[in-house]
């Protein structure tokens, strides 16, 4: 009943493609927070941290994502592939976390990031894809757990 469908696999692949590069960038941030590479990956080429609060927020988000988000995300994907109820619950939790972060980032960062990267980048790989994935993973999981299969 909870077996992955083609739609499940699309969500999993989309999630990995969306979150994989971010988690890589955050790994650099965790281990080399003051490096140029971390700055380049997280804010863009040639850009500097706006202030200490911006740097510390990015650093804390990177660690929190590696300690909590990544395990929940990977365990969720594993559970979903194994057709387990707990997998869908973790998948939904991963979606809820990423939606939370991106609602926060919308209010905290959009005024700086959006003008710098433009609408296409912002509404896709900079911010949008994370929100679309979170929303889709969350509601898909709830529907599957309620017996709606697609």
């Amino acid at each position, binding site marked *: 009943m909870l077996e992955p469908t083609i739609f499940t696999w699309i969500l999993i692949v989309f999630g990995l493609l969306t979150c994989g590069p971010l988690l890589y960038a955050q790994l650099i941030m965790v281990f080399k927070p003051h490096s140029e590479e971390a700055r380049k990956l997280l804010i863009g080429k040639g850009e500097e941290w706006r202030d200490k609060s911006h740097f510390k927020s990015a650093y804390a988000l990177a660690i*929190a994502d590696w300690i909590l988000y990544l395990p929940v995300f990977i365990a969720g994907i594993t559970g979903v592939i194994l057709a387990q109820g707990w997998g869908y619950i973790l998948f939904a939790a991963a979606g809820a976390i990423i939606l939370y972060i991106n609602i926060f980032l*919308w*209010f*905290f960062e959009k005024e700086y990031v959006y003008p710098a990267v433009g609408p296409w980048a912002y509404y896709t790989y900079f911010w949008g894809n994370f929100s679309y994935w979170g929303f889709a993973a969350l509601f898909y999981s709830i529907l599957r757990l309620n017996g709606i299969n697609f």
Partner: protein
Amino acid sequence: MNLMTKKFGPYPMGIWIALIALLLAFLGWLMQAYSLLDWEGAVKLGLQNGSFEGDAVERAVANKERGEAIADMLWPLPIAIVALIGLLRNEFIGFVAAMMEFAICIYFPLFYTFQLWNTDIETVIGANVLWAIPSLLGIIGLWANRQYFN
């Protein structure tokens, strides 16, 4: 797990713990709601650290905190309402919503911990004691009683 499934009145212990953790989450969202209504008053009460009337650093902190407060009103607060009603009514959607709420309530204290541990240890301890630890216990309590939900 036996203690978690032992019934005390209408609910097993694990569900009581989850309900208490949810009420603590509501306390947090109430603080955030008050902050949005009267930011400088909330700063005076110690609910927020950054003032919009302070220097550039304080304003940057206030900007970040306001982003968190708005995000809290838009996402974890509605989930908490669904979770509370669902748990009280013994509905499976309450179980899933509470799991998502607790994931967020562990995530943001982790974020605070790595952002503020060397500048504001009181906030770090407060966030972990009030939200992260109860939420973790809430997850354990709910999982022990997962058969309890419709």
